């Protein structure tokens, strides 16, 4: 290992070593992907208008990442009035997002899914393996490094599938945290693209002057990710009629 590589590794590792004493709140927001289709635009004009309507609401919603020592929680902030809460579909859009609890010591992540009942889907922080690249860019005043990971996802039409998630983290902000269940990088994730959503840091408060409590979720049925996927419906072109018009 040459000296340059050693310095680079120290540059990456030091922020993680220093993460133990901090408490604060990072606020993220979303930039939704613009609708794309092979179909002629005129043939789905009304549908695209609907998708854009949802994006307008979604992109205005703040997501809080509260952290206290080794624990953190990522959730939709429903308290902050964003001015669009009276719009049709606002509640459904809020409910389309889950919350995530993370404990660095226990190396656990709990995704809280509220469906017909509440599920606590457990996984390990170590399940996410990052590939840190040499690519850099500035986000605000922070130099950020690109990292990617391949993880599994599930939707009723795709079933279990693999996806690549892209993150840009700032080594100068000593927090191995980020949106959703993503973290474990040597610096705060400033921007993260997961399928149709790009999460970005909207504001940071590293010395909060308000009460901030990080609570581990306990109410709900604890289940593994694999078992949760197993319970979900599967929609195909062949059984489509069972799911539409019903």
């Amino acid at each position, binding site marked *: 290992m040459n000296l340059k590589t050693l310095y680079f590794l120290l540059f990456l590792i030091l922020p993680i070593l220093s993460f133990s004493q901090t408490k604060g709140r990072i606020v993220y927001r979303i930039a939704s992907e613009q609708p794309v289709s092979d179909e002629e635009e005129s*043939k789905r004009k009304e549908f695209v208008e609907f998708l854009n309507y949802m994006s307008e609401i979604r992109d205005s919603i703040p997501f809080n990442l509260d952290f206290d020592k080794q624990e953190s929680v990522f959730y939709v902030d429903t308290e902050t009035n964003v001015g669009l809460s009276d719009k049709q*579909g606002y509640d459904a859009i809020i409910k389309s997002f889950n919350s995530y609890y993370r404990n660095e010591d226990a190396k656990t992540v709990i995704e809280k899914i509220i469906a017909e009942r509440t599920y606590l889907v457990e996984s390990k922080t170590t399940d996410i393996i990052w590939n840190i690249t040499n690519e850099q860019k500035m986000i605000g005043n922070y130099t950020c490094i690109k990292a990617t990971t391949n993880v599994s996802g599930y939707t009723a039409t795709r079933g279990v599938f693999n996806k690549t998630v892209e993150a840009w983290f700032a080594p100068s902000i000593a927090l191995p945290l980020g949106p959703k269940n993503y973290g474990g990088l040597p610096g705060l994730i400033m921007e993260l693209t997961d399928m149709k959503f790009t999460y970005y840091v909207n504001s940071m408060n590293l010395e909060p002057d308000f009460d901030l409590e990080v609570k581990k979720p306990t109410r709900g049925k604890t289940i593994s990710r694999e078992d949760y996927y197993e319970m979900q419906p599967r929609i195909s*072109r062949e059984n*489509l009629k069972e799911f*539409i018009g019903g």
Partner: protein
Amino acid sequence: MKNSLILMATFLFLGSTTSKGASVDVVALDPCVESAFDAMEEMLDFGFTPEQAGCVGNLRLADCLGYEVIAGDYKGCL
């Protein structure tokens, strides 16, 4: 009334594709079924439930079949 028409159109359409002995592949290749499926996939990718996605898929199918569907109808699925 309008929703009933759309619903009826959907069932008539789906019934016709199968009652004529159409194979699964033929159903899968139908452009309107494809549009409905794509719309549902898009909704699910956005994190909505299969029920909400199904409602949007139904409207997308009706739209594709020539029934008038406006953005406000889709909003009713949320």
